[in-house]
């Protein structure tokens, strides 16, 4: 029941009994001639596709030196876009941490008709092309809204779009952990006198925190860099509804590559920090066993 399109990054759910599962041997071989050639080809392609272009971004951002980089980012309009992006992403992340946990909880612990369907619905925002996600939201909350609410060019609109595209992250990271949770532990807490709420707060929630954190950081990274779903919704008004990714596009269209690169580098840093954070979290979880 956890078919998921969300990449299972972050802490691996601890499986099974404390005795641990038997893992097959995983020895690594030294490179042979043919595998060496394979590695070479793969590295060349990876460099051409990913590493060189990303280096070009950093190069362009650094071209004007630290001063130019700093000036671009602190330019009032750019800074407003960056601040809006971070604030909206944080709000959405916070909302997801709570709501995502609740959704995961209901999907795992409750039993009711239609639950399977809801479980599939969770994946839809991730499976949909981002531009389609934006369009879908506009069909209900756009200019021709059947409920008379138009979110185009509002911060609420940005919040809603980000909420939509980041829906699966926390749910899908928390769900497997919740499934694997040992029922014995909850029974132990109950027989020691803990109420259901206390058991949740002191026993279950702490076990979920790494998963919530992992899902949240994935969601945050996604929200920071979101583009497609915002193109139609955010009106791109400077100081009001302009977000970082759209600012990059605007810089590019205005033939300001260095400005675009400066904002892009900032987004790259966030991406890298997220990966590092996830790595740290998963190591911590692995240590706890």
């Amino acid at each position, binding site marked *: 029941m956890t078919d998921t399109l969300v990449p299972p990054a972050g802490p691996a759910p601890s499986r099974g009994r404390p005795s641990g599962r038997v893992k097959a041997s995983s020895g690594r071989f030294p490179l042979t001639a043919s595998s060496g050639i394979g590695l070479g080809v793969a590295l060349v392609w990876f460099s051409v596709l990913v590493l060189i272009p990303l280096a070009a971004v950093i190069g362009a951002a650094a071209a004007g030196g630290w001063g130019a980089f700093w000036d671009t980012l602190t330019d009032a309009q750019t800074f407003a876009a960056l601040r809006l992006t971070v604030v909206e992403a944080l709000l959405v992340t916070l909302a997801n941490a709570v709501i995502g946990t609740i959704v995961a909880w209901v999907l795992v612990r409750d039993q009711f008709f239609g639950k399977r369907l809801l479980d599939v619905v969770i994946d839809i925002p991730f499976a949909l092309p981002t531009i389609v996600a934006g369009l879908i939201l506009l069909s209900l909350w756009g200019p021709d809204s059947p409920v008379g609410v138009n979110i185009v060019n509002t911060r609420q609109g940005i919040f809603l779009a980000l909420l939509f595209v980041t829906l699966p992250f926390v749910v899908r990271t928390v769900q497997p952990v919740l499934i694997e949770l040992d029922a014995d532990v909850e*029974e132990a807490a109950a*027989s*020691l*006198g803990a109420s259901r709420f206390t058991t949740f707060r002191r026993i279950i929630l702490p076990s979920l925190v790494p998963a919530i954190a992992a899902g949240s950081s994935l969601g945050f990274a996604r929200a920071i860099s979101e583009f497609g779903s915002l193109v139609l919704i955010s009106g791109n008004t400077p100081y009001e509804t302009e977000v970082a990714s759209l600012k990059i596009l605007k810089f590019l269209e205005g033939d300001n590559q260095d400005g675009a690169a400066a904002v892009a580098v900032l987004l790259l840093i966030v991406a890298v920090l997220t990966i590092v954070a996830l790595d740290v979290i998963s190591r911590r979880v692995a240590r706890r066993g």
Partner: protein
Amino acid sequence: MSIEVRGVNKSYGDFVALQDINVSLPTGQLTALLGPSGGGKSTLLRIIAGLESADGGSVEIEGTDATRLPPQKRNVGFVFQHYAVFKHMTVAKNVAFGLEIRKRPKAEIKAKVAELLELVHLSQFAHRLPSQLSGGQRQRLALARALAVEPSVLLLDEPFGALDAKVRKELRDWLRRLHDEVHVTTVFVTHDQEEALEVADEIVVINEGRIEQIGTPDQLYDEPANDFVMGFLGEVTQLGGVRLRPHDIDLSTTPGAPHALAGVIVRALRVGFEVRFTVEVEGQTDPALVVLSRTHARALDLDVGAKVWLRPTTGATSVPVIGAGLGVATA
């Protein structure tokens, strides 16, 4: 009586887990619920703890009717086979949990935790996480956690089942000594007859949802109520018309003893200090199993192919064979 179970029934769909269970356990006693897996013994323990509710019947703990009480209100300590420690809490925090729930003063909690960690020999690990403990240590931690709230009864569900043989034996002896020290009414579930015989004051044999027999280890071993209890408590073999224990067979290399049955040794196996002979007995389809001490076997100079005469030793525990087909229980 500390625990009084009356007329308890429990089914899961079509499967009857427990059927009209009546048992009373006196205060301070160490009782084993013994039986094969899936026989209902764990279900009974969990019903006593309130982790499962019976379909019918009642459970009384220390004189109060607990049938409808949730587990939180029963004041029982429960120890799980797989420890069920709180992984994110230190050893000391684990033990303190029940006391914190009860809102005891901080100083009292601290003292009590220290006392219990002392009791289970984990004092030096107080600030470690459970993942840094061995299986045996985790189970001692689970025990300390359960005892911290001073439960009226302590319930252990296959407490040593997940541990390896050596640790299991150590912990078993240790549980017996601990019980002699703290004297809390204790019930533990096991499928290991040796464990039950060694540790318990009284054993309740449960099979297929029913109680087969209740008695002291000696009673059960010497006067099994039926074929099942006899078979479950130790190795059983067949000789003539009776079932009896392999070490209760007298083996001689000469005929002459009254009622002795003749046979031929077809297999001899040395296991540690004993020798196990498989003997084809005349007029019997299944071979008999005879266990002799190694010295005894050597004195008789026995080997495969030797002709021997078998008869039950005097005073041997035996039950008549009911029909055929009941296989010989092997250890």
